[in-house]
């Protein structure tokens, strides 16, 4: 077990040390703040898809629900104004309830049917957020959102180092909780459903209830991430900030990182979000420097290459590391058990 904890500890140790080296760079903080937020969303999706094996294409919806719940509960244009910490907590709770409501009737569906339902839920959430203008302010977004206060000390938005560590700590708490669940009876039940739903059911594990708990937990974590996303911007942005592309990004994070691996999710978030926040920006800067001529040629602008680079990167990572960058269950190879002789299972002859 110790072998598994290492990459996670390493991630946090490195992340905690990084500001010592790059403390002056705003870009550094921006990139990593998004990385932490999306790591949270990825963590939630990892519970649902990575642990329990339910393909969820609507993670952004839960992020949106978290962000809007947080905004409505804390923004001073509404009467609730529960404050930053209660807002975060309640946003997570609202996310769990939403996950539960969506899950209750649909978690009996098999794989890709569930995927399409979650995708539809993502679309519905966007539409509802846009259409219920009286409540959500439609496409305006809700702002400003409060800053966190710790014992009378308020972390202002521009105090990036404090935000960095705040997010890191919150991510750490989330990782701790997720790991605890993963390595308990609850998590074993999730994994067993992913491995073989029928066998798990025949072992007395109620599939629907187990899935529902996983779904609600994952949704809560993602909603928590969404609330932090909004808090970081001090605005919910517009509903379109949580569209299908965000769900896809979350999915790419966990698959590129390594399905079902908490460490993988963290690394996946760093790679996928970092690619956007650092690599693509840098590429645009490098190629864009000194360009003052005509830009009517579509190929001339580096920005027009971003989709291509992003897509190629995804395909390449999958070609080189199809199991993800940090595949789960390192200890099974680490303990040096040689893979058993491959016995071909005799083809099941008819209905014997």
């Amino acid at each position, binding site marked *: 077990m110790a072998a598994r904890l290492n990459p996670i500890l390493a991630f946090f140790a490195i992340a905690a040390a990084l500001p010592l080296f790059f403390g002056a760079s705003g870009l550094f903080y921006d990139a990593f703040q998004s990385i932490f937020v999306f790591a949270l969303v990825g963590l939630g999706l990892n519970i649902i898809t990575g642990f329990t094996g339910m393909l969820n294409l609507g993670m952004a919806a839960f992020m949106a629900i978290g962000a809007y719940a947080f905004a409505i509960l804390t923004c001073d244009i509404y009467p609730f104004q529960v404050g930053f910490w209660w807002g975060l907590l309640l946003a997570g709770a609202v996310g769990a309830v939403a996950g539960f409501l969506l899950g209750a009737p649909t978690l009996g569906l098999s794989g890709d049917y569930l995927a399409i339902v979650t995708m539809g839920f993502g679309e519905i959430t966007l539409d509802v957020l846009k259409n219920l203008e009286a409540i959500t302010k439609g496409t305006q977004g809700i702002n400003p959102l409060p800053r966190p206060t710790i014992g009378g000390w308020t972390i202002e938005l521009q105090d990036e180092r404090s935000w960095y560590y705040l997010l890191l700590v919150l991510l750490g708490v989330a990782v701790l909780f997720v790991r605890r669940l993963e390595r308990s009876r609850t998590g074993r039940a999730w*994994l067993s459903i992913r*491995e073989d739903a029928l066998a798990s059911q025949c072992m007395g594990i109620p599939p*629907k209830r187990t899935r529902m708990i996983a779904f609600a937990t994952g949704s809560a974590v993602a909603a928590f991430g969404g609330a932090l996303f909004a808090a970081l911007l001090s605005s919910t942005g517009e509903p379109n900030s949580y569209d299908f592309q965000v769900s896809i990004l979350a999915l790419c994070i966990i698959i590129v990182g390594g399905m079902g691996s908490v460490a993988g999710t963290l690394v996946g978030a760093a790679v996928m979000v970092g690619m956007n926040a650092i690599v693509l920006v840098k590429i645009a800067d490098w190629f864009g420097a000194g360009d003052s001529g005509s830009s009517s040629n579509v190929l001339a602008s580096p920005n027009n290459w971003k989709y291509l680079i992003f897509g190629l990167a995804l395909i390449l990572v999958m070609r080189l590391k199809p199991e993800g960058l940090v595949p789960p*269950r390192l200890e099974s190879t680490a303990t040096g058990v040689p893979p058993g*002789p491959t016995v071909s299972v005799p083809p099941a002859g008819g209905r*014997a």
Partner: protein
Amino acid sequence: MSLLEVRDITMRFGGLTAVDGVSFDVREGEIFAVIGPNGAGKTTLFNAITGVYEPTRGSVRFRGSQVRQNPDARLVRRTLVVGVTGAISTFLALNSQEIWTAAIGANYLLGKPFPWQQALADAWATARAVPAVWGVIPAIVGGVIGAATVLALWQRLRRTPDLIARAGLARTFQNIRLFTDLSLIENVLVGMDSRLHCGYWTNLLRLPGFLGESKRSTAEAMDLLAFVGLADRAQSAAGSLPYGHRRRLEIARALASRPTVLLLDEPAAGMNPSEVTSLMQLIQRVRDRGITVILIEHHMKLVMGISDRIVVLQYGKKIGEGTPQEIQADRRCIEAYLGAEDEL
């Protein structure tokens, strides 16, 4: 009284009748075998007993009662609750904007304390003023859909493998279904799940009781692995086990729930003679723990060697039942079986 009464089980898949009116009784503490040529419907019968399939006709009684959720007060209550929730939420979904505007939009002024009572009163007044088209009718539709959903789901879930497993019937599978990415000990712990008590919050917050239970359960799982002779590889992934050992792990996993009845589906398939011998000993040791064993097997030496009673199936029908000696003397059974062996 017999432990398990199988009565008139029939399974049809489209036009094909895989099991046709099979009945038998299994007594407590015996080793009971189901044999028959390939395609005779043995595994289908197992699936019908363990709830994987819903039998087209017939019943399975365990300790005198059917393992299934019957329509009861809880179902009625749940249907009502979901129906009413559906009705209310449909109503709110359609009218949320107006109610919100009346209660909060109109009453809240930036920076002033919020008059909660006034807001509630306004919300109630607005809700009552909603015209029937947007209020009553959608609410009825929402309620009906909610209730129908509960009933539809209940229909699908009332006789599920997990209910039957929790009642005390554990099984293994013909084509071994282990959790290959989990370690051996975790596989066994999953089997033990129904006997563990630590809930979600206990696990999340490491509340008192967590450590004790996890220690106890791990120790017990190790004992079980030792019982089937796999204790030395407890931490390796189940997927890395050689074939013969997988059967043993599957049996350990099934035993972990401390079942009353253990159903083994072709446990000796693909084993060499010495493995079969040790499997026979294992099965007998399981029975000696007081567990009733039902097994499907082609391996005649094993079946005849350890079974107390045997049922023979052919083309989905029962063609014989009795002790090994009786079956070995029954011409019909021998013909059916030898004929099938020829086909192989």
